[in-house]
């Protein structure tokens, strides 16, 4: 039976855009997790627990935002983990509990993050080397520098600095709210500005983008610089959360930063996807980990469950792409 409009003409059912379909899929998965959580533990749906999940997604979401931008141009940034490690030890080591040093050190760390990202971008466009190789090499250099600086946790933070991670506004984490706003701002910039549209164009077809007169090199350097910026912000956030910087603190983020990107529906070959999907992907993973802790599932099984979710998310996406 076909539906009709008031005027009697057959309704034209617009197909869901890939981004909408992806959002719906992540939303559905989150709803399933919430339903299971509510069934097994009466404390799962308490605001305090959901606020914890919101907070726990912050670091991964932030580093994955930078990764999303590089992936949108068809690239990847494998230096993020080492950059976070280096910047975290520099942040806590240079602040060393001195409140007066917070602003200059954070500013310097952000600048350094952008500089390293810019170098990555320059390496990709000027040397014409695959971003995987350039950023992998940069990652090794940065990890070495971090270990030259310190081989164990270093420095400390002054009172109040930890409110970046643990402070609450209306029951929600300050860092979490800030990251949510940053994501919305980046999503708007990507859609509404010429540079944002150029990022998609470069990822979709670099050659065509060049023929269209887009500044492909500048766009590529820009996304890697942005990735460096978000890695720096992640490092500062982690120092606030842990109270100090550690030379291996970012190691796990190198590959895990790709997970919310993929789960959120950004195509690894570039040009398609929405950064808000990445944010939802990070929330989904945090919610999943929280549920598995409530279910008392051992870590080994948690890793398997996370892997299966990623594979399922990608498989559904690939299937939709084929149908399209």
């Amino acid at each position, binding site marked *: 039976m076909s539906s009709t409009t008031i005027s009697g003409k057959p309704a034209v059912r617009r197909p869901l855009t890939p981004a909408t379909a992806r959002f719906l899929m992540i939303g559905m998965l989150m709803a399933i997790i919430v339903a299971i959580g509510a069934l097994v*533990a009466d*404390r799962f749906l*308490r605001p*305090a*627990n959901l606020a*914890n999940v919101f*907070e*726990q997604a912050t*670091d991964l979401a932030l580093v994955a935002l930078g990764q999303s931008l590089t992936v949108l141009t068809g690239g990847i940034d494998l230096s993020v983990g080492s950059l976070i490690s280096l910047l975290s030890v520099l942040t806590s080591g240079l602040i060393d509990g001195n409140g007066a040093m917070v602003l200059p050190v954070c500013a310097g760390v952000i600048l350094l993050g952008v500089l390293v990202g810019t170098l990555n971008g320059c390496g990709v466009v000027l040397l014409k080397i695959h971003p995987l190789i350039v950023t992998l090499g940069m990652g090794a250099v940065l990890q070495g520098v971090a270990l030259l600086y310190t*081989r*164990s*946790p270093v420095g*400390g933070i002054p009172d109040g600095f*930890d409110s970046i*991670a*643990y402070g609450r506004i209306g029951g929600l984490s300050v860092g979490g709210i800030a990251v949510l706003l940053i994501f919305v701002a980046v999503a708007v910039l990507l859609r509404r500005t010429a540079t944002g549209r150029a990022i998609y164009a470069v990822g979709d077809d670099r050659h065509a983008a060049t023929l269209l007169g887009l500044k492909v090199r500048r766009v590529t350097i820009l996304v890697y610089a942005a990735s460096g910026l978000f890695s720096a912000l992640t490092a500062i956030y*982690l120092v606030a*959360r*842990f*109270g*100090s910087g*550690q*030379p*291996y*603190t970012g190691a*796990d983020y190198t590959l895990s930063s790709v997970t919310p990107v993929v789960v959120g529906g950004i195509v690894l070959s570039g040009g398609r996807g929405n950064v808000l999907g990445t944010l939802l992907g990070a929330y989904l993973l*945090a919610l999943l*980990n*929280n549920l598995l*802790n*409530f279910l*008392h599932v*051992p*870590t080994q099984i948690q*890793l398997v469950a996370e892997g299966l979710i990623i594979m399922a998310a990608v498989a559904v996406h690939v299937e939709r792409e084929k149908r399209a």
Partner: protein
Amino acid sequence: MAKRLPLLCCIAAYCVGAHQAFARGYEGAPRTELFNPALTSCIRDTATYKKAPPYVIGFSNAGLGDSWRVVALDEIKQGAQDHKDVIKKLIITDAGHDDAKQVSDVQDLVSQGVDLLIVSANTEKALDPVVTRAMKRGIPVIMLDRRIASDHFVTYVNASDPMMGRLWAQWIVEKLHGKGNIVILAGQAGSSPSENRMNPALEIFKQYPDIHILDTVYSDWSPVKAKQVMQAVIAKYGHSINAVWSAHGLQVPGSIEAFREAGFKPGEIPMHTTADVNGPLKMAVQYKVPMLEVGDPPAQYRLAIGVALKVLSGAPVPCVVTVNSQIAVTPGDETPSVKGDLPFKDMIVPNGADDMLITNDLGPDYTPSTAHIEYPH
């Protein structure tokens, strides 16, 4: 005397719990308490945490990954099983040695409404803020084996890392008559057992101007990584290495293997320090390596459950609860300051696996790979 009474009661209670399944050596009260030169000891009042059973206890584990931690996990399960009449549930999380995950784990355990938290911190600084916050919310926290940097917890159950570190260092210094070259084979950078054994040891070494630290390398408690890092160190310094100060026994087999593969004959391999693991003791005899064993018994995990119940009953507890470390030295290698509690050969389980922990208290038939410990969960 009245001031001392709670301490003596605590000591008496805890030394009962500190028993061993294998060779028996020193079984008295914890020496760290008896030898404490302070006029008063730190005792924590826990009256505010008093609750009626049954209890839900949360345990946030730093991670597994080596045989010591596998056995320790079974010990804490056994501890809960020992007290299943008052423990309704022991909820265990495992952070896989990831600070970010462990911070989330602690938050999730608090969300689940645990009555008490036991935390074995992956690194001592990273877990500090979240543990401090749990305490501020009124949830008593017991640090187990790996502490946080601050003192924001009720008590710390361990085997006295500083004592182990100092004993190993003092033994090396005396064996070398105050002159020689040492390699520090540490554990995991930033973990409290590694840092809190190494730093007191370094203080000892610094007192002897002719003792030189050639290099400090991290093994991550792994014999495989220890072998890699020691191969590089041996290639650089060769026979000028006089002693290897190792922060535990887990990494020692890798170090000794590296010396053997570098051509060191039995009797030529420099002295090593070790703890808990059967393999290094067997290798010490086989390759004539002078060795000092100071135990770090995983039985402390079982003991932690008993301490948790004391806290929840409102009884005072020492700020630091230590389990006894058995000391054994290879024959002829005792020094003026370091004597064994029992013969070295009695510590070895000849037919036992190399990675067997000789200091567990789960019984002679216990095998980590096949054991299934029932516990309330």
